[in-house]
């Protein structure tokens, strides 16, 4: 450690060059972390889901509905503890440029089904009591500057016309994958306005024992197999995973770009390190003459490249983490719960370490193996 001042002096020799190298490492790791987080956010959405919840859809496809009368029949299936349902509403607010999900839900059973949505008791009470009430995610409140108790009017795209709701509750998602930008209102209000069609978009069931999920799902589907609207039941996890797969090969794309970024910067940094070391040939020779061992010279150069890589990593990875957390970024609503995970940070740190080794080892070896006499003569 006593040579630390020497390392610092070396780094300060070309302050600008050192700073540029650190910044390019930081930018590379920032990009790497961002791209990686797209992948992990999509995967996280796919992994969300309680093992105790099943989702039942119309077997024809997710845009088709199911009769509301199925609720009671599902409740009666052995092993089913609770049933709730929701409808996709497809509302637009304002200029319609911000995408967010709007559901008509059966309020009481829905909140019971999802303890992950935390609502203050007084707001919950107010939401349940008022038929025209809406429950909204905190992100939407920020985005549109809404206040509790405010009336908001949405344009229906599937169900035409102006729909006005009063915001009575704000939920807080305890699991980021649940999304902080969902708009929910009473199914009953919806059904009445569209003319009592008695249709649910999908059902969510809570079962007593996750181990029986397959049997219960089969029992439900069997019950409706020969009806006019057959069902398809699966675990909530599988349901969410099917959404994640719709992103197609976006994840692969992001991963590939991430690798290209890291590799590009690796080349550039390694090059800068090597060129920096080359012009110091004479100095290394002097150090050796003074009595520095080969090993300590190797260490000196490695420490120098390590300093650059680690500072860059802290700036880049830390910057990504802080930036996305503080701005609550969610890609215009498409990627709820966008947050750099610990795994991504660890992966980024590993990349930085590799960077340090790859860019430091050649110059360090060269310094260690330098034949003193020749080096001194050549330059002197």
């Amino acid at each position, binding site marked *: 450690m006593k040579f630390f001042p020497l390392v610092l002096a070396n780094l300060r020799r070309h302050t600008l060059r050192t700073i540029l190298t650190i910044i*390019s490492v930081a930018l590379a790791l920032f990009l790497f972390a961002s791209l990686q987080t797209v992948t992990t956010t999509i995967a996280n959405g796919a992994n969300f889901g309680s093992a105790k919840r099943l989702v039942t859809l119309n077997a024809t496809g997710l845009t088709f509905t199911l009769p509301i009368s199925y609720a009671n029949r599902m409740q009666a299936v052995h092993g089913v503890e609770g049933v709730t349902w929701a409808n996709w509403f497809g509302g637009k607010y304002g200029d319609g440029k911000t995408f967010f999900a709007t559901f008509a839900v059966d309020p009481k059973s829905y909140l019971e089904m999802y303890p992950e949505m935390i609502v203050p008791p007084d707001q919950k009470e107010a939401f349940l009591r008022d038929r025209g009430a809406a429950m909204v995610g905190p992100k939407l409140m920020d985005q549109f500057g809404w206040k509790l108790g405010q009336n908001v009017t949405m344009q229906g795209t599937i169900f*035409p016309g102006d729909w006005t709701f009063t915001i009575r509750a704000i939920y807080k998602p305890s699991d980021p994958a649940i999304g902080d930008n969902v708009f929910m209102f009473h199914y009953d209000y919806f059904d009445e306005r569209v003319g009592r069609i008695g249709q649910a978009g999908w059902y969510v069931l809570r079962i007593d024992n996750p181990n029986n999920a397959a049997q219960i799902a089969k029992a439900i589907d069997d019950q409706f197999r020969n009806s006019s609207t057959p069902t398809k039941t699966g675990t909530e996890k599988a349901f969410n995973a099917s959404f994640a797969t719709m*992103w197609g090969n976006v994840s692969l794309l992001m991963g590939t770009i991430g690798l290209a970024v890291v590799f590009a910067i690796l080349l550039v940094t390694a090059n800068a390190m090597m060129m920096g070391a080359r012009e110091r040939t004479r100095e290394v020779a002097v150090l050796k003459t003074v009595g520095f061992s080969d090993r300590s010279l190797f260490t000196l150069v490695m420490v120098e490249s390590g300093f650059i890589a680690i500072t860059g990593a802290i700036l880049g990875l830390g910057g990504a983490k802080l930036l996305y957390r503080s701005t609550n970024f969610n890609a215009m609503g498409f990627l709820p719960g966008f947050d750099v995970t610990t795994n991504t940070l660890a992966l980024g740190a590993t990349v930085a370490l590799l960077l340090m080794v790859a860019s430091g080892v050649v110059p360090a070896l060269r310094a260690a193996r330098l034949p003193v006499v020749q080096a001194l003569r050549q330059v002197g």
Partner: protein
Amino acid sequence: MKIPFNYNLRSVLERPASTAFTAVGIGLVVAVFIGMLALANGFRVALARTGSDSNVLVLRKGADAELSSGIDRQTASVIATSPHIAIGTDGKPMMSPEVFVLVPLTRSNVGTDTTQIANVVVRGISEKAWDVRANVVVTDGHKPVSGRAEVCLGAKIAGRFRGANIGEKLRFAGRDWDVVCRFTAGGSAFESEVWGENEQFMPVFRGQVFQSVSFRLKDPAAFEEAKRQIESDKRIQVDAHREAQFYRDQSKVLGSILTILAVLITSIMAVGAIFGAVNTMYAAVSGRTPEIAVLLTLGFHPRSVMACFLVESAIIAAIGGIVGCIMALPINGVVANTINWASFSEIAFSFRVTPGLLLAGFIFAVVMGVLGGFFPARRAAKLPVVQALR
């Protein structure tokens, strides 16, 4: 006097490792730049080619997508009476009331993993749709016969889903459909769809409603009149869209996300690469101090020395640009698939690497090189000769 170009070339080649490192670094940036824009490009083209300027798409009033629209038979027959619809050779109006639904299909390359499904557009068309949509061409097999449970697959669907090959059976809506043909549509979004007869699909899906009506304009210039005539008809509540414009709008969200992403990622990368170029050139300048001093002593103007280093940096970057273009070329035509949030369905499209994009990538590289070379070149030009020689 100018320093001969040959000098630059040889000094670049003198240090092959360092040149290669910087060039490949810049090349990767260029490759990502071209790749991302090729993706955005491919997506735009897919949707821009979907519609035709001479076609009109009629949806229910307020509906912003075919999926959220609904048009009953009566409305469709009112639209059919519009004098603006072109008449086909058989004397019938060239229009197609269409059923538009999403069905979950299982991807074919995933074995038994049933979560690997995608929502694919199934479009129920009338016999006339093949004429209304001029860019749709059946390449294999025969068109579905009216009254039979037969479907035709878009070229980008074929083979990617279970049962999605001619002669096989595709299962959706609780029954099997014979796949009898395959069509191309100039790389448009139609190629990600399954087409069948509307009268077959109507009963198995949503009952007696269509989702949209498409027709060919008698006079393509008369769109505004046709729109006014149809929208002002008191018997029906519909919006008329120019088909091409409608699909272009559908590509807006994802198209701009892709472009923003491309610009964002590449500009961050570019900053990193420029810094890299700066470092390399600085190191080159300080490594060649005596050489530069000699040049200056010989009487070369500092400006020439500066130009010399700028050219050298540009050469390295240009090599990088070429490397990047070569790396990006193989992705041309590779099929990417993702969800188009505007219609909630899967869309497959090809990366499109165009000559313009390659040129842009090359220029981008040279600009990076010149920017990165500027300060080091200036330092070289300003070297104090006496001190440098010593």
